[in-house]
């Protein structure tokens, strides 16, 4: 179970919520409302005051890389930094190597991806293939919580359905999912609960109007 306690992602008010095992929380809000930043803060990629617990253990009790292996953030735009996709997958421990490779093969099949794509130059892959491979990369090492930032961005309807089926499978396996999405029908299909992020109402209107003319601050979607 993921528990977020008074997490401060400025300029949003402190946020507290829990996501039980097997539950999906959808984070809704307009672009720039802080959806990505909230997800990044939960993964501890961005500094934020407040506490985040996984099964009662606070994140500061473990090293940050261990936390991010359990609480996995998957960005909207997947990044590849190696020649082939395979090299950018998390390295399995030697004992689990064969299990991971068969699990990976099955996962890729479910995403309608040919296993040979793993060893092709990433630059030769289509946007949709890279997006689906990034989803596989995010879930293959079995994180407990998935923080999915628009996971079906840029996918056609068939691929989108496949990814959603896999998200549901992760939920059935007891993972917690926090889903940032613009797609309200997707949220209807997947989410058990919703968190609505609005522009903070405490700011005076004049400030908001002035803000609108400035380049967006921080992360935008």
């Amino acid at each position, binding site marked *: 179970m993921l528990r977020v306690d008074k997490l401060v992602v400025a300029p949003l008010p402190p946020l507290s919520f829990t996501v039980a095992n097997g539950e999906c929380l959808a984070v809704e809000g307009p672009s720039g409302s802080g959806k990505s930043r909230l997800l990044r803060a939960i993964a*501890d*990629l961005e500094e934020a005051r407040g506490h985040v617990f996984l099964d009662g253990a606070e994140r500061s009790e473990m*090293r*940050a890389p261990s936390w991010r292996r359990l609480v996995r953030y*998957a960005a909207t735009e997947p990044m590849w930094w190696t020649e082939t996709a395979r090299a950018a997958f998390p390295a399995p421990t030697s004992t689990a190597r064969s299990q991971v490779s068969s699990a990976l093969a099955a996962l890729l099949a479910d995403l309608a991806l040919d296993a040979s794509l793993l060893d092709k130059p990433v630059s030769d892959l289509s946007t949709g293939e890279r997006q689906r491979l990034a989803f596989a990369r995010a879930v293959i090492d079995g994180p407990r919580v998935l923080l999915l930032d628009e996971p079906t961005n840029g996918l056609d309807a068939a691929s989108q359905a496949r990814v959603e089926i896999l998200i549901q499978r992760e939920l059935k396996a007891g993972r917690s999912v926090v889903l940032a999405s613009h797609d309200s029908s997707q949220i209807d299909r997947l989410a058990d609960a919703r968190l609505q992020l609005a522009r903070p109402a405490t700011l005076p209107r004049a400030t908001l109007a002035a803000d609108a003319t400035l380049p967006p601050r921080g992360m935008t979607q």
Partner: protein
Amino acid sequence: MTSYIPLSLVELALASILIVVNGAISVAYGLRLEKSLAVASLRMVLQLGIVAMALKFIFAQTNPLWTLLFVTVMAVATIAEVIMRQERRLKGWRALSLSASPAFLAGLVTTLVALLLIQPQPWYAPRFLLPILGMLVGNSLSGVALVLDTITGAASRERRVIEARLALGATRHQAFEDILRRGLRTGLMPVLNGMAAAGIVSLPGMMTGQILAGVDPVEAAKYQIMIMFLIAGATAIGVVAGGFAAVHLLTDDRHRLRLDRLTAPSD
């Protein structure tokens, strides 16, 4: 071995005519470099003149505190120069000096090695210590400035890649391994190239100087070889220390990328 020929100011003035040729080219082709050219030439003359007088004064003193003072001024100047060469700087004096000080410290350590090899009497004799320190620090400075600039530049350009790796559970060192490697290569390249070209493409400045001063070319080459090794050592130590410092200062103990610790690009 007494073939040293002193120069008079008249001869220096004649040599400066060549700078005027440079200026004429700049004007003729509209390069607009004439002002920087004049400033750079004047700076060079003033700096070398002042340093020569300072060295002359220090060589005449017996108190080593004067040498120490000169070394301290060099340390400050080195750190300032490394900082000036950065396009995006770390914020805060602590971070700036932590990242830039390897340039000086590496030169200092290798200078002590050189003094151990040459064994002047006394070991801190400024006539040996100061020129060697200057040469080693100068080279280490270029390497450290390059490695810092490469790493801070790559970190801000490749932010998303670094964060994607961190999100997958990489430590800050794993997330930066490619960038660090690139930075170290960039920082070490000038020294490697310099060693490879020494003697064929160019005669190193120190060897040229010794030969002009009447030293036997073989003796001058021996000195130059030792200095080359020391330069390579100073640069390697400075570049590695500077590179690791940069990675540490651009991340925090929660393995987050902290680009907020960099200033906006200058220019």
